[in-house]
């Protein structure tokens, strides 16, 4: 997401002319970054500067903070999982580039969400919970690579459903919605990659997309992550009847949301 857009959408809701001036002059500074085409550099700088923006327009700030803290909890879980996986040495050397990249994204999400909550929405970001990735001694993801991959898939597919389920709750705020969508598609890319990697290694037959709500060879405890993905009716249109395409393929073509309680039910397996 382009942070110029983000800045454009944030209205300085303040009566202080000083703050307005600061807002506009900083926005102008970003434009100049943009003109230089330094997209990455620009993206790396800005969040500290967002502290100049007292409020985001329109939305119910408390509700937004709640949603973003929920997302932040999941990002904490993902980041910690990959960081521990990388530190443990369980990841095959050939796959390091993949998991380093995923870890970097999850860390960036943690930092981004924390910054938006604290600096933009003036809220308090949730601190990182204590995690138990063995889920009470049932899994050994940091000594058994197939288990590491299986849980990685579970977390990524959960993340996709979780963000999707919150879209409607942040839609009154264009900036937050767009940021959430821009994280959502990154989680989907991760999920696709990890799913295909497991199949390439002969650990499963899953594809990059979810077929008929199937858990494949994942542990039965993950069923809640996939339940509902078999849906083929959208906006009242049964797409199998409409197209004659098989239900498996149609189910793959649409991912389904989960609500907050459903997601927390899944995540709670891994809370210490």
């Amino acid at each position, binding site marked *: *997401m*382009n*942070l110029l857009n983000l800045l454009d959408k944030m209205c300085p809701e303040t009566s202080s002319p000083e703050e307005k001036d600061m807002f506009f002059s900083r926005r102008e500074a970003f434009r100049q970054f943009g003109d230089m085409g330094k*997209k*990455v550099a620009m*993206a*790396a700088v800005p*969040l500290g500067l967002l502290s100049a923006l007292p409020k985001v327009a329109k939305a119910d700030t408390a509700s937004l903070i709640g949603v973003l803290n929920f997302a932040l909890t999941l990002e904490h879980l993902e980041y910690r999982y990959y960081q521990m996986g990388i530190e443990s040495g369980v990841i095959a050397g050939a*796959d390091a*580039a*993949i998991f*380093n*990249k*995923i870890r*970097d*994204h999850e*860390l*960036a*999400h943690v930092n*981004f969400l924390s910054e938006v909550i604290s600096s933009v929405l003036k809220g308090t970001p949730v601190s990182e919970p204590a995690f138990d990735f063995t889920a009470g001694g049932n899994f050994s993801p940091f000594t058994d690579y197939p288990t590491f991959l299986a849980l990685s898939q579970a977390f990524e597919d959960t993340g*996709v459903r979780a963000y*999707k389920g919150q*879209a*409607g709750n942040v*839609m009154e705020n*264009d900036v937050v*919605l*767009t*940021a959430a*969508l*821009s*994280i*959502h*598609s*990154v*989680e*989907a*890319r*991760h*999920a*696709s*990659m990890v799913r*295909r990697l497991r199949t390439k290694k002969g650990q499963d037959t899953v*594809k*990059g*997309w979810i077929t008929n709500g199937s858990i494949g060879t994942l542990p039965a405890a993950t069923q809640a992550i996939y339940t509902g993905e078999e849906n083929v009716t*959208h*906006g009242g*249109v049964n*797409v199998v009847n*409409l*197209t004659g*395409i098989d239900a498996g*393929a*149609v189910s*793959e*073509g*649409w*991912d389904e*949301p989960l609500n907050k309680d459903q997601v927390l039910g899944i995540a709670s397996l891994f809370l210490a």
Partner: protein
Amino acid sequence: MKNELIKPQGLVKNANRRQFLRTGTLSVAAAGLLLVGCNDDEDMMPPMDGGVMLGSGDIGILNYAYALEQLEAAFYATVIKGGYFANASAEEKQVLGDVEKHERAHKEFFKAALGSAAIADLEVDFSSINFGDRMSVLTAAKTFEDLGVAAYNGAGQFIEDVNYLVIAGKIVSVEARHAAAIRDLINPGSADFAGDDLIDANGLERTLNFSQVLTAASTYVTTPIDFSQLPTA
């Protein structure tokens, strides 16, 4: 990738019309009236002959999505009849064969959901793609999937009805799954599936606006697309 984003064809006409509306001293209401009359002024506006008008509000955005899904569906329909696909590896056949079904399902879904408000079938031109060549096909597939994700991500903020927003959300993550798989076919085992060319230092994927997306698409779509009624705020 970036080069493909700056080849306006049909859209130049649209830009002229928008420019006309912008520079005129029309009030918003008057501009709206003029646009409503678009189908009637084709004599006055010859560039729009044979073109489609996406419309306004959520219908306009659904038509925008429908246009992109038409493009993707037409592309994969050609892929699976082509020389590369016939001799592709089992893995690549599975990926592209699945994606063809998904995009066809998306296209038919939007057409049904839009009903009489749906735009007409778009004319496509894939002459720049060699369907007998693996890299040509996969590179084009990457372009279309990445474009689709950026388009949905950019359009979400303009959707008014939460039900449509959720439907768009259900589709965009599948487009992202496609994009990641195709990128991994091109450069296996690398970090390209979620590459730094698309994802910034905050871990956010790029978004593209209507104009950027349709300009990119116009490389492959010959039907002029008038998106001037799409929401701007």
